[in-house]
């Protein structure tokens, strides 16, 4: 009997060999124009996935040539082959083929910003030692020319061991044709033979593995020497044998002495870079560009602060002025559609499922889209224009005093419109602790979905008096905003002191010049983020909306339906014309309220109501709050149904009902302390399934969303109780 032979091929290798002729890693500094070039080369032939176990996105695109199809992998930007963040670590691990299950690239496209050769060539020099086919694209070569810098491309190529160098302008497409052709032939191109710039290190690397049979690549040993033992070079260390640690330390001592290896590496490599620059680059008198002037102006504290507020004011103006009409339109369309379905299918569970469950569910996903798209768009524009880094720089001092860093400012401010884009924007924060602290603080910011609830309760229960020259209602609203900010900052501060305690992260922020964002890149990024929202948050919102519908619909009481039918008949015999319609609507509303009372949701409200007695709530408020947990704006519609004024009731009608609402003992439910408590509850509580889903995605674990939910609910409960008991 012959035994079947087992063949093991990594999954993605099969995919690569079938779809593409070669897989090329696109590597470069952050802000080097790498993504713009990648988008230029691949267009919309892109896929976005995730690297296993981390939240780093994997961007893969296809470059179609006449005779070949090349897979390009856009790696996160990095300055060197030593990592300081998750993103950099992934980029380096892919380049060095250290990720399990991810094959080594067939070649590397190194993207170097022609206006920043100094840092760009540092990385290229490290890449040259990897013994992989390499091409260099010099992006923004037009900006370099305009800045009066002349680069001798042929000489540069000589310095880089004959590596082809292509000056390109990714935004206009200049110089892309030769680069495309070179990428097509890259796999077959011989790897560069680069004389080591640091002979002592190379010798030590060879020495260290002199007795090992299967010699690893010298570059890998050099990284082991410089970075020390770690998770990613465990295999290499094991190959050294029993006393590997000791051998390694000895070799390190010989090369670096008492200098930290990273410092020694930087000194040696940058010395080489300066030598190359002196040879290939002639700097004419560069004119001070308008960008430099603008940068200088916006860097001064006063114009800088005003500028930041102005930018954020425009963003908010756009979110509310452009998104609100669209959201109203979507809301109206969903209601009309629901009405049509209800009319077409008649009364019954199916009709209600389609109208109030599915259509309302889809509607509650789509209704987020206008403001999320607008917010995403602005965040991407700010990122791509280079303003984001500048805002982080300007606000760093203030944010540091609460334990965060300047990079947290844009996510936090964005969360005033919606926490979902805010939390997704935390990706710019390289330090994980800072990032999670920011994510935990973001949902406290008063988002636009809290506003309708605030507006309803304030208009109904806060007297429209003036205190001094201020309107009391406005003052309460302002207080709620401030309360959110203080709670968010306090949360971040406490988390950084406790669960997220850790060393201060290094703060080294590259401040790119302002530049006009590339529309194609902006569009592709926007599309990607909206897709993520729809896939991750949308499915959750929809599911939860249908579940809440079912809770509020079932079980139906036949008795109540019968009673409604009798009342209908009575009304029809008593009234006619408009009076009849009013009477019928009233019967409908009361029947809906009665049905809701005995539905699972109503029962749940009654079941948990004792827990909310210390807060002064009755079962109706409790039921509305439970229904609002998936999405807080739902609460108004539920209150409308519970109080038998219909889910589309206008505010005045609803607030009158709320005022008239009584506890069984006859005392009013909505007293001032209770309303203050309810407002505090709303300010704190994380009643948003979308936010939870996005936190899950961005932290890659359920731990943080669960913690955020429990923490915020507890705070809201305690705050509401304190307000009710003490006021």
């Amino acid at each position, binding site marked *: 009997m012959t035994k079947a032979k087992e063949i093991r091929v990594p999954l993605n290798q099969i995919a690569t060999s079938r779809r593409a002729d070669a897989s090329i890693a696109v590597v470069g500094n952050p802000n080097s124009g790498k993504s713009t070039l990648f988008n230029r080369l691949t267009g919309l032939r892109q896929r976005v996935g995730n690297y296993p176990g981390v939240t780093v996105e994997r961007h893969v695109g296809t470059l179609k040539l006449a005779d070949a199809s090349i897979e390009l992998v856009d790696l996160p930007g990095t*300055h*060197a082959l*030593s990592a*300081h963040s998750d993103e950099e670590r992934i980029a380096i691990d892919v380049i060095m083929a250290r990720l399990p299950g991810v094959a080594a690239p067939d070649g590397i496209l190194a993207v170097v910003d022609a*206006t*920043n*050769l*100094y*840092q760009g060539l*540092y990385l290229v020099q490290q890449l040259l030692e990897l013994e992989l086919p390499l091409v260099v694209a010099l992006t923004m070569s037009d900006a370099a020319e305009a*800045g009066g810098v002349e680069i001798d491309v042929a000489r540069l190529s000589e310095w880089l061991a004959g590596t082809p160098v292509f000056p390109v302008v990714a935004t206009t497409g200049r110089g892309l044709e030769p680069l495309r052709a070179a990428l097509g032939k890259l796999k077959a191109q011989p790897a560069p033979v680069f004389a080591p710039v640091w002979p002592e290190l190379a010798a030590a690397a060879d020495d260290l593995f002199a007795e090992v049979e299967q010699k690893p690549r010298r570059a890998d040993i050099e990284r082991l020497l410089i970075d020390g033992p770690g998770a990613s070079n465990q295999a290499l260390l094991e190959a050294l044998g029993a006393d590997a640690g000791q051998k390694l330390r000895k070799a390190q001592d010989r090369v670096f*002495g*008492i*200098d*930290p290896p*990273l*410092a020694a*590496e*930087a*000194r040696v490599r*940058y*010395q080489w*870079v*300066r030598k190359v*620059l002196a040879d290939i680059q002639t700097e004419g008198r*560069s004119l001070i560009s308008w960008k430099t002037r603008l*940068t*200088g102006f916006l*860097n*001064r*504290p006063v114009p*800088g*602060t005003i500028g930041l507020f102005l930018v954020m004011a425009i963003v908010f103006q756009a979110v509310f002025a452009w998104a609100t009409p669209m959201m109203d339109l979507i809301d109206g369309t969903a209601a009309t559609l629901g009405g049509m379905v209800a009319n077409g299918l008649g009364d019954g569970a199916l009709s209600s499922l389609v109208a109030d469950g599915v259509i309302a569910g889809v509607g509650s996903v789509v209704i987020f889209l206008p403001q999320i798209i607008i917010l995403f768009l602005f965040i991407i524009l700010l990122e791509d224009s280079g303003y984001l880094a500048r805002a982080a*720089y*300007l*606000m*760093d*001092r*203030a944010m540091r005093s609460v334990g965060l860093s*300047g990079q947290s400012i844009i996510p936090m401010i964005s969360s005033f419109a919606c926490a979902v884009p805010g939390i997704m924007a935390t990706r710019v924060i390289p330090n994980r602790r800072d990032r999670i602290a920011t994510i935990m603080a973001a949902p406290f910011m008063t988002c636009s979905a809290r506003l309708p609830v605030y507006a309803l309760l304030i208009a109904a229960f806060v007297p429209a008096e003036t205190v001094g020259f201020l309107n009391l209602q406005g003052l309460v609203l302002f207080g709620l905003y401030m309360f959110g900010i203080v709670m968010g900052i306090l949360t971040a501060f406490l988390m950084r002191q406790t669960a997220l305690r850790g060393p*201060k992260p*290094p*703060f*080294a*922020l*590259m*401040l*790119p*010049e302002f530049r006009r964002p590339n529309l194609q890149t902006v569009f592709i990024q926007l599309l990607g983020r909206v897709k993520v929202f729809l896939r991750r948050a949308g499915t959750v919102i929809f599911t939860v909306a249908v579940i809440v519908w079912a809770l509020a619909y079932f079980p139906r009481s036949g008795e109540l339906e019968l009673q409604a039918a009798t009342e209908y008949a009575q009304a029809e015999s008593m009234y006619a014309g408009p009076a009849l319609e009013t009477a019928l609507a009233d019967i409908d509303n009361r029947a809906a309220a009665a049905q809701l009372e005995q539905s699972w949701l109503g029962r749940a409200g009654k079941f948990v109501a004792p827990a909310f007695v210390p807060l002064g709530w009755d079962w109706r408020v409790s039921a509305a709050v439970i229904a609002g947990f998936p999405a807080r704006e739902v609460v108004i519609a539920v209150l409308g149904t519970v109080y038998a004024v219909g889910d589309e009731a206008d505010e005045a009608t609803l607030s009158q009902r709320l005022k008239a609402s009584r506890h069984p003992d006859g005392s009013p439910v909505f007293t001032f302390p209770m309303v203050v408590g309810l407002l505090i509850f709303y300010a704190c509580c994380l009643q948003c399934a979308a936010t939870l889903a996005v936190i899950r995605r961005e932290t890659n674990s359920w731990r943080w969303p669960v913690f955020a939910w429990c923490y915020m609910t507890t705070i809201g409960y305690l705050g509401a109780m304190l307000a009710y008991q003490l006021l």
Partner: protein
Amino acid sequence: MRIIIILIMDANGKTLETLKCGQRSVIRAVDPSCPQVQRLMTLGLVEGAEIELASAAIGGDPLEFRLFGRGISLRREQARHFSVAPVGSGD
């Protein structure tokens, strides 16, 4: 080695933190003991690099420098570790 660095820093007295706006200088010595400083060295802040203070943020911290025409921002506590001398002052 460490002693020499400290001596150089003492003799000179000027660090990136004490630079004035627009003053072009060359980094003369770096104290690399702190990991944050090593990261900055990887970004190109090494001995021999020419650098210039461009601005200070709200509250006087962090500072923005221009390194080979590129803006890079450092906090004061990090800038302290880099000792500088004016351009052309010899080695």
